[in-house]
């Protein structure tokens, strides 16, 4: 008797082809089951819990870095600025412009205390150090597409969060969380949507919606590096889709736990920051 894969040998016993389909189905169901288990485990985290994980990512006690910022308008014309930054935890940031010459020496200090931000600015052309309103944080950072708030660590209580879905960006598995602003006038945005890598709890993309609810800006973080055990975004791009203007910020010469003296983070030190740049 001649047999083929498509011929049953006897009643009730599946032939080879059928058996292959059955095995494939079992495997597929197994994979699906594992995937569902993964989805069930991830969606057990609320939007708020996901953002809290991002906020809890370990940061170095202090860090210094050189930042270059390139502003590109809709005609493709660009200007660049260079800054040196010192950070102490998430509460203190000191920054001085190194180039170009017309802004060199202009320096900022932000100190967060009890939820309030203290901001100081030094203007070398005036020889004047002055305190700045905290609500200036929603203003453009030196003409770029980032606001001062965008450049710093956002207060997670400024938004109410909802987990939307899982996604994939550049081959990386991400969780998508929507944040609705509690006080849009304060944040400058009605909503932000964040794509977060759930292996390292770092954002890779953020959409910012204006007070009318229209998409205003898209931030991507195309380079995230592990530096001496700490994850850090070392390249950010912000594109204003309404004005067709773009800003690219790159960090280099990053040093963590470099022992930056506390005095750097005082308003008195602002006029001296340019001299402290390594």
């Amino acid at each position, binding site marked *: 008797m001649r047999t083929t894969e498509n011929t049953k040998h006897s009643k009730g016993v599946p032939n080879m082809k059928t058996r292959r389909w059955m095995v494939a189905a079992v495997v597929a169901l197994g994979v699906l089951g594992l995937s569902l288990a993964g989805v069930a485990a991830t969606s057990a985290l609320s939007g708020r819990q996901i953002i809290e994980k991002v906020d809890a990512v370990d940061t170095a006690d202090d860090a210094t870095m050189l930042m270059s910022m390139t502003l590109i308008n809709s005609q493709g014309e660009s200007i660049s600025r260079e800054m040196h930054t010192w950070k102490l935890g998430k509460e203190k940031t000191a920054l001085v412009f190194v180039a170009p010459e*017309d802004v060199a020496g*202009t320096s900022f200090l932000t100190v967060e205390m009890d939820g309030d931000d203290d*901001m100081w*600015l030094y*203007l*070398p*052309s*005036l*020889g*004047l150090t*002055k*305190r*700045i*309103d905290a609500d*200036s944080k929603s*203003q*453009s950072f*030196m003409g770029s597409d980032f606001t*001062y708030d965008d450049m710093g660590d956002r207060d997670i209580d400024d938004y109410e969060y909802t987990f939307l879905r899982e996604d994939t960006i550049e081959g990386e598995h991400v969780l998508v969380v929507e944040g609705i602003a509690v006080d849009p006038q304060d944040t400058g945005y009605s909503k932000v949507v964040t794509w977060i890598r759930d292996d390292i709890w770092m954002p890779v993309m953020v959409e910012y919606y204006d007070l009318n609810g229209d998409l205003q800006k898209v931030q991507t973080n195309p380079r995230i590096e592990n530096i001496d055990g700490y994850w850090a975004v070392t390249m950010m791009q912000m594109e204003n889709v309404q004005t067709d203007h773009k800003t690219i910020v790159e960090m280099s010469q990053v040093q963590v736990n470099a022992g930056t003296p506390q005095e750097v983070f005082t308003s008195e030190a602002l006029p001296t920051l340019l001299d402290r740049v390594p």
Partner: protein
Amino acid sequence: MNLKKLTPALAAACLLLLSTGVLAAASGGLLQPPNAPVRLLIVDETHSIQSSLQIAQFARAINASGLFELDAIAQMPSGDNVATASYHFILVLPERIDQVWIVTTDFPSKLRADTRRAYEVLERLAQSIYENQQALDRRLVAGVGDGIFPAIIPGVLAVNGWLMPAQHLSAGPAN
């Protein structure tokens, strides 16, 4: 913004009154040799980043002119000036009024030629920065004859030694 101008007669009367007080009570303020840098004090009462960066741009233009010796403070001076020499001009950016006040103890037209020239440069620079349609912090530039505040402030500041008295700035009756 609509600017209410004092009538020339009223403005002159105010300044005459203030100048009388200045002559009686002023101290300090040496007579400046011709072509010496004009001493300028900027009072920046603003508190936003954008307005601060705009005044920094203004200050760079002032410094680039080579005409001024520039100092700056963050609030209106009070009390006697015991630390520095008096200023030819004080330029004020008030926090809550959309104006730039250029104050001095005499009308610009009465100033000595070199001082008047510096005043005109300062006024033009201020107008180009603050009356610019593209300016983020738009303000109207006002001098001593252009409003109540720029008319009153010089007398107080001169009495306390912050502004040079009129007789050290003016060209005299032949001007």
